[in-house]
């Protein structure tokens, strides 16, 4: 993603979800970047163990965080993962996960 597009997405999210409170947005983003790798391990653990409930919950949390960061495309992938797990379609979830994992890595 280009820097300009990322900056625009950030400004939109800042206005839409944080009412322009940049300090709050920045603190939230910093917390997300710390937590994403930990949640990634949880998703992988859930996929390995066939724990659809765990995958659904963590994917849902990641999706919500991405939405508030203005990362709409990645949030959509996280939603696909969440819905696949919700319907116990773990093979489908396992297909969506690498795309999301790569996207999360690119944010840090």
């Amino acid at each position, binding site marked *: 993603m280009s820097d300009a597009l990322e900056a625009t997405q950030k400004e939109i999210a800042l206005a839409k979800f944080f009412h322009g*409170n940049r300090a709050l947005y920045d*603190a939230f983003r910093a917390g997300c970047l710390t*937590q994403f790798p930990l949640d990634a391990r949880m998703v992988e653990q859930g996929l390995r163990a066939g724990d659809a409930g765990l995958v659904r919950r963590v994917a849902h949390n990641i999706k919500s965080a991405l939405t*508030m960061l203005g990362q709409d495309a990645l949030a959509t992938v996280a939603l696909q993962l969440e819905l696949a797990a919700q319907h116990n379609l773990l093979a489908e979830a396992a297909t969506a996960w690498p795309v999301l994992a790569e996207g999360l890595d690119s944010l840090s």
Partner: protein
Amino acid sequence: MTSGETPFSDAEYLTTYQVANLIGVTVRSVQLMVNRGELRGWRTPGGHRRIHKDSLDRWMAFRRGTGGIDRSAPTPVASLQTPVRTSKTVLLIEDSVYFQNLVTSLLSDSFDGLNLQMASDGVVGLAMAGQLQPDVLIVDILLPGIDGATLITSLRSHAFFARTQLIVLTSLTAQQLEQYRFALKGVAVVHKPQMVAELPPLLGHMLGLTTAAASPSAS
């Protein structure tokens, strides 16, 4: 702005060294405060940090307990304007670290002295609700252990819960919430993407600390 200009006049900004001396910390600590957003700063063309004096004033006022909201940022219409003193207890049952952190930041900006307790799963949350008997319970729906809707139904069978007010904090869609509808009648629901605007005024209203705010409800 041309490259030689600065965003502020000399009277409006300070160097990191000056700020460090003023508040008695190291220059590195000041740099970290800027990175965390506690102070507002910018860099000169040569890469040196400058700190906006107003943001230092606000930080110092916050440390003195006289308010710390960043007034340069637009604030939601219904939000609290300054931190409100309260000794009320709020229990947040939320497994997402992202939103545990955001709720903590948001409420500490809005309420001074609020006793915010946290549980990361439904089972622990249920036990803590009984033990703390909070003034307000903020609960997520998708939780490990017991989901939020089952937790609410269970709590309603306890006499103490009659004095506890309830906010459901969720990012589930309306369609996804449908299966939990049985527990949400008459309950205030805040959708996570709107929480910065909606949660502080709603909580303030429930705690009797502000005038009525818009209260989204699932009823």
